[in-house]
């Protein structure tokens, strides 16, 4: 019994984290058809800026601790905006003619660069900024205790998921975006400023990545390589859900998150394979992912 709801809560927490990590990736792919390998770097940059800013804030000592949450968000936004604009304006905008797979490789190069850049800027010592995490305290369900911060994370990712979905499906901007997704040429013909759309989307995507990092930072010890670790995870989630679909990312995250937590509780031995297992399985049955559209070519 305990195990059951442990599985559920753990699954939910992990799933919400997975979604946070995957959201930016799927948004960018959905609009720009770029499978962004550098997403992990945006995650770690967010984590580092969040951690260092908060760390600096608490090092200063006096100052209401609760402001640190705003600092986390601020750091994420700043980092996301900066790096997003830098990469999009400085590099990607000249590459949109290239085919999808080449974009993957371009972003792979970006990953290599950003990983070392982060290292040069923030050093290799792990950042350990626990305050925002321990600040919220814990709550107990029967014999199980959970950190309120983790539970709050669920709320946050629900909010973000809802926001993305609403923007895409309920606003004019979103409708225009979907037009761009459907057919770039026609959108251009309709006078949509695709360049702007792309820039905006990319920045949103990177910011989401950075946000995921910043929100994770207090719960972990931020050290080199965390970015690379999340890429493959995020890919798995997005591919399972269907590339470019927010709904897909949500379902993918839940599926992977819950399956994993079942494995951890009932069969720790197979934990390592769960994610790739789920991914290969889904792809084998439904190549385009659960929510992916596959377009037969017109001849």
């Amino acid at each position, binding site marked *: 019994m305990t195990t059951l709801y442990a599985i559920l809560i753990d699954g939910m927490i992990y799933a919400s984290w997975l979604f946070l990590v995957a959201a930016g990736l799927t948004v960018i792919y959905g609009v720009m058809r770029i499978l962004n390998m550098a997403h992990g770097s945006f995650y770690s940059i967010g984590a580092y800026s969040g951690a260092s800013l908060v760390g600096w804030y608490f090092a200063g000592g006096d100052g209401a601790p609760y402001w640190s949450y705003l600092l986390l968000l601020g750091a994420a936004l700043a980092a996301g905006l900066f790096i997003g604009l830098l990469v999009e304006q400085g590099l990607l905008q000249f590459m949109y003619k290239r085919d999808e797979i080449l974009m993957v490789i371009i972003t792979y190069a970006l990953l290599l660069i950003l990983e070392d850049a982060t290292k040069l800027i923030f050093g290799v010592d792990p950042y350990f900024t626990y305050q925002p995490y*321990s600040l919220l305290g814990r709550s107990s369900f029967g014999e199980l205790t959970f*950190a309120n911060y983790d539970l709050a994370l669920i709320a946050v990712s629900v909010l973000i998921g809802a926001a993305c979905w609403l923007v895409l499906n309920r606003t004019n901007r979103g409708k225009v975006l979907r037009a761009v997704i459907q057919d770039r040429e026609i959108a251009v013909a309709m006078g949509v400023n695709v360049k702007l759309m792309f820039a905006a989307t990319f920045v949103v995507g990177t910011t989401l990545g950075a946000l995921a990092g910043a929100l994770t930072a207090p719960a972990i010890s931020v050290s080199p390589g*965390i970015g690379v670790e999340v890429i493959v995870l995020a890919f798995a989630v997005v591919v399972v859900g269907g590339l470019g679909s927010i709904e897909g990312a949500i379902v993918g995250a839940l599926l992977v998150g819950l399956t994993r937590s079942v494995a*951890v509780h009932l069969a*720790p031995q197979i*934990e390592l394979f769960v994610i790739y297992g789920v991914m290969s399985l889904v792809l084998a049955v439904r190549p385009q992912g659960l929510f992916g559209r596959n377009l037969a070519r017109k001849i």
Partner: protein
Amino acid sequence: MRRTTSRIVPTAVALAASLAFAAPALAADNGKFRIGVVTFLSGGAAGPFGVPSLNGAKVLVDALNEGKLPAPYNLKGINGVEIETVIVDENGGATKQVEEFRNLAERHKVDAVIGYISSGDCLAIAPVAEELKMPTVFFDCGTSRLFEENKAPTYVFRTGLDAAIDNIGAARYLVDSGRKLDSVASIQQNYAWGHDSWADFSAAIQQLKPGVKVATEQLPKLFQGQYGAEISAISVSRPDVIHSSFWGGDMEALVLQGAARGLFDKRAAVLTCGESALDRFKGQAPNGLILGARGPFGAFAPQNPLSDWFRTAYRGKNEIEPTYPAFKMAQAILGLKAAVEKTGAKPGTIPAKEAVAKSFKGLNFESVSGTVQMARAGGHQALQGIAYGEYSFDAKSGKATLANVRHYSGECVTPPDGTTAAVWIKAGFPGAQCK
């Protein structure tokens, strides 16, 4: 397109050739004692291990070149020869490391190599070091397989301890501290280090306290960072003791998340690599958390002129206390220095590699961790004790110290030659001398 090979083939060859001739120039024989230092500068192991060890190396090498060390190491550099280091990033896998090792030996013409944190790299490098007759000192990697597979070493030495000792020591500490110890939960990173550590610990604890139950065995992926599900699983299994060989960021994350979720309330937990974060926990780790340092290093290192000097010098350069990786690196360098100088080559000269290897074998030398005897694996493996203690944080001073420290002599926790750790534990530690 076809005709183009005509250009590329010669270019390639020319390029290769030019490099070949460029090589000696690169390894200018400047009469300095060249040491290849290989440690993690990138990836997850850089922060907790790589950089502290590199800082340790820098502090020591600079001081040696200035002849600033206390006796018996007051002879300048190594045997009076100035030391020059060639630093290599250990990141990137064993294949790449073998390639880089050959570069060090044959292109940079180093006189010795010190390094390697990853057991995989040590296993891959050992045979190459023997083949190239290159004195090589492994300062940190802990795999028991190192000298089990490389039975008759000549040029390979390890001044760090076998990981089996961490876990035998941990088991003894738990038993001796007389805690309630009916069930043990395990959480290890899912790779060789974690597997081996748990295998040794569970075997040892079974020997010392028969009938201990295993509550759960968790094996999260290396660098996973999120341990929510694992922590719940452990809490649900209600163990008396938790054993973990986690290191670096993963360990800090586990402690933080576990503490926040009361994982360590009313139960003991032992972290075999915990000491490396002693000053980083800042009270986030619960008092009473049992920490190890993979030997008498870092905060466990005894007071002696060398360790006092090292602590001060390290603090002076890096504003923080040296952790165990820094101590282990220092120990490796001191070992090499001692070995070279014991060859009796006249000061100011670099003795032949054979001579260095010969005098390193079975060497006794003073180190930042006390006296080290190269007394295992036929004189190629350091024999030292291990210590464990409880984390205790003083909120007022904001300083963390170690309480209830227990030391175990090398003879107590180290298998004698001719038997493997696993066999020795199973047999009930025959010949172990513990006071």
